[in-house]
């Protein structure tokens, strides 16, 4: 599978209700060391938002507050975004279906984790 099969895919609850779209895939570098320098990234969860556009800026999942107007607007646009763990994904293929007892988590990066690898 390639990641594009997941990105922008509709996400449904087990009942069939549409919950949103996959706007990003959260990875955690804690997989096996496959003979390289970095360990293999594990798919940790899916970020689901009611909207698909403009999420690439990531304002709804970081603590970035500036430019203030843009940050507030984008955070408002993406309210309702949540993280669902990979283990709560019941089926992948076209639509993504979540397990009956899936749990929603805050989409923000975990505290104390390296948040800005670009710096």
């Amino acid at each position, binding site marked *: 599978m390639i990641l594009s099969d997941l990105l922008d895919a509709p996400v449904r609850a087990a009942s069939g*209700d549409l919950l949103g779209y996959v706007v990003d895939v959260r*990875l955690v570098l804690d997989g096996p060391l496959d003979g390289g320098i970095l360990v293999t990234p594990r798919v940790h969860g899916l970020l689901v938002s009611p909207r698909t556009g403009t999420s690439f800026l990531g304002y709804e999942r970081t603590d970035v507050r500036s430019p203030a107007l843009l940050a507030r607007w984008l955070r408002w646009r993406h309210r309702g975004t949540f993280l669902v763990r990979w283990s709560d994904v019941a089926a992948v293929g076209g639509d993504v279906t979540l397990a009956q007892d899936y749990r929603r988590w805050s989409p923000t990066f975990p505290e104390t984790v390296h948040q800005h690898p670009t710096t």
Partner: protein
Amino acid sequence: MSPRVRRTALPYDVDEDLPREPTPAGRVLDARLHLLDRQTLDVDDVPVACVDDLEVRTASGSGDVTSGASPAYVTALLSGPVLGTRLFGGRPPASRLHRILWRNVADVGTTVRLGVRGEDLDVLWVERWVRDHVVGRIPGGRHDPQ
């Protein structure tokens, strides 16, 4: 307009304060935010390609990921002709996407740094072919400008 769900139709409260996850043991990356469209540089800081996609496989190495029942891992960065499919939809055939194995990745930052030379990667075969068969046949094309 991009697809969206009316918030009134959602089965949950969008303004609910969700709990934060416990901090995972490893570094956290969001694929679209931190990896896709990033430039890759080889061990000599020579640009290689952009990260157009990622290959995801199960722990057993199968590319057939059907659910979250078993862990899935990113095994390779993919690069290829994706401009057309991004504009018009669809995706290029798998044979047109070149793989850079994750084991060759040395660091992820503003760019994705590789621990190998780009010359050894399949992703640059077009560039090598054009250099050897086109540019190299132009008079003066086989040495640095004077």
